[in-house]
């Protein structure tokens, strides 16, 4: 099935099987391996991307459903060769250890700050609820998002 999907502003035209998950399309067909597969059951949030302006888990969508959609992934965050303000805040606050969850965390925080540039502490925690991190205990991630929000 032919699809045309915009990812980070570039339109990709591909022939995909309907059974292919969006996360596999991004990683295997487009070689955009920034979005990770963690649990593959919709729990961990490592595959989170922004789909037509809404944060979603790309392991629970089919690639064919993205036909005509605008997708944003972690590869689209940096400003040229420079990290953006949120990514810098993650580095400055040591908001990652192994880094596996980080692309998803960044996309969840990006979606939050776009809708709500000055979130409360509770709003930050709620926004990150769908993303699991097994290293940090979450605190430094929370601090990084809070710093980026100022």
């Amino acid at each position, binding site marked *: *099935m032919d699809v045309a999907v915009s990812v980070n502003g570039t339109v990709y035209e591909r022939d995909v*099987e*309907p*059974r*292919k*998950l969006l996360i*596999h399309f991004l990683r295997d067909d487009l070689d955009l391996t920034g979005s990770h597969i963690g649990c*593959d*059951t*919709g729990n961990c*949030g490592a595959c*989170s991307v922004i789909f037509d302006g*809404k*944060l*979603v*888990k790309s*392991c*629970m*969508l*089919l690639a*064919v*459903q993205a036909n005509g959609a605008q997708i944003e992934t972690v590869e689209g965050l940096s400003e040229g060769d420079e990290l953006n303000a949120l990514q810098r805040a993650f580095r400055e606050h040591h908001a990652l250890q192994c880094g596996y969850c980080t692309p998803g965390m960044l996309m*969840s925080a990006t*979606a939050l700050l776009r809708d709500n540039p000055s979130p409360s502490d509770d709003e930050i925690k*709620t*926004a990150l*609820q*769908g*993303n699991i991190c097994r290293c940090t205990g979450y605190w430094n991630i929370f601090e990084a998002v809070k710093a980026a929000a100022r």
Partner: protein
Amino acid sequence: MLLREVEYAKPASVAEALTLLAADDGARALAGGQTLINVMKARAASPDALVDLNGLEELKGIELGADGTLSIGPMTTYAELIASAEARARPILGEVCATIADVQVRNRGTIGGNLCSNDPTNHLPPLMSAIGAQMTITGAGGTRTVPASDFFLGVYMTAVGPGELLTRIHVPAGRHDGFAAVTLGVDGTCIVNAAATWDGKLRIALGCVDAVPVLVEADSVDDVRAAVRGARLDPPSDVHASSEYRAHLAGVLAERAARQAAG
């Protein structure tokens, strides 16, 4: 996970969706996909074809009638309902939807999908049962509207038959509602949940304790525990809770939901 091979169609109208569903016994409607895609990975469901309802504006939107009743399109997402000014006419709807899973799932998962999947641990079957919602089902034979008590038929089974779709959810006016749950982690899967509404007496629907929501009625909050005992629940046991503990929680949560509804 690689899914089994499946065909895919994205109809442009409800009529076309019904035709596609009726033409193939192995076709399944794809709503938000936040359950269906995962059970397809596990091969717990293996449809031959998916009929994607996303994009059908006829199945979206929330209207508030002059009499305070709400008409909810089944393809409305949890996030859209939470943000809807109209849906605040029955505040419990948004309050409960805000506790389902996480931002990503609420952005994609739908009210109709939650009802039609009818997993016994879902939030909305007991809520819609307690508040007396009615569901409109459309198929080749026409349209019919059934109360929640006739909609939820068994585990994963509803009155929506092969070749049919849930096309509208009708919620009566009311504000005196409550909901309580014990979950696996904050906003996780329910171990037991209870929804209650007060309209001169209490009507409580218990979830996770049987194949379909169990309705009990009581005259006052003080009578709720006895009413739940009278229902002689025999809930399933699993790794999260024994049958006895679930039955105990049902009484506790029914009382909490009832207190909120009557308060």
